[in-house]
């Protein structure tokens, strides 16, 4: 009996060690928080257009009934990584013919207008989320964040942080293929 009991500390330590080894997996990111929206209908929202911009506003209704899944990108002119991401998204719209919607998060309309005038405007629709409230509806943790929404209005994928760099882009493209927005082998 005593013999078995004496092994308990070792056994517990071994179990802990197993978990630690699992936790050190380099693909695991302790800061990546999965979205609760995945496979759920996109949240209800209705955003007006950015003041002074021709692009129309965005609401939940616009996300439903599209022929192919669409990309919803949350961006702001004050967000530096968004600038790098902008080029990647523009390419996806121009080369792959994807539909891109934008949520302009807590941004001054004049700054956003200037930013888009400078970098170009690949967005089909942009809703202006001045208060950041719609951001909360989407479970936003920072800017930028990019979602893929299916034709029936279901959220299929979320990417936290800028879609910039090889790994991020290939992860995102793979998600687009899974969603049916892109055909496999279509290159960007």
């Amino acid at each position: 009996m005593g013999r078995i009991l004496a092994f308990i500390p070792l056994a517990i330590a071994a179990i802990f060690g197993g978990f630690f080894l699992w936790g050190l997996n380099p693909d695991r990111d302790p800061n990546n928080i999965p979205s609760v929206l995945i496979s759920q209908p996109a949240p209800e929202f209705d955003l007006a257009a950015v003041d002074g911009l021709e692009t129309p506003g965005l609401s939940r209704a616009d996300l439903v009934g599209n022929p192919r899944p669409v990309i919803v990108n949350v961006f702001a002119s004050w967000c530096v990584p968004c600038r790098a991401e902008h080029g990647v998204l523009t390419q996806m719209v121009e080369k792959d013919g994807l539909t891109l919607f934008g949520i302009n998060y807590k941004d001054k309309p004049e700054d956003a207008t200037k930013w888009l005038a400078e970098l170009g405007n690949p967005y089909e629709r942009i809703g202006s989320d001045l208060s950041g409230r719609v951001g909360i509806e989407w479970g936003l943790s920072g800017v930028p964040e990019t979602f893929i929404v299916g034709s029936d209005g279901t959220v299929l994928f979320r990417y936290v942080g800028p879609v910039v760099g090889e790994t991020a882009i290939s992860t995102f493209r793979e998600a687009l293929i899974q969603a049916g927005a892109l055909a496999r082998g279509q290159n960007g």
Partner: protein
Amino acid sequence: MRYIAFAFLLLLPVTALAVEPDEMLQDPVLEQRAREISRELRCVVCQNQDIDSSNAGVARDLRILVRERLVAGDSDKEVIAYIHARYGDYVLMRPPLNRVTLALWMAPFVFALVSLLVGWTVISRSRRRAAATGFSDDEKAEIARFIEENASKDGS
């Protein structure tokens, strides 16, 4: 990958001091409830901070939202459920009780029970050894020492 994630989180405007006067409610009772709720909610972009003590922009938005829900007449539970629905289990500083967190919530009781068991075993074993028939040489020495120590009357 991780480094990029950190880099962009740091770019959120950080100049303020957690709770700001313009967020606060006039009604001290409601405000107190808001503060207490805020301590139960985690700031999702921070490292282990509740939204009450975080100066991140999203935390401020959530604080304002908590107060709006309270003013609209929500109970504390409803407010927390509202944010829980949008951000998931991660946002709760007090983990919800479910199948996967049962072990966590049971752990304090289990540990306490194990401790009680160990304590009881140790004490009863000592008692059993003392009550064993006859005295071994060891125990005789023990008794002798006991008498000696009691005679000297030194508690330590």
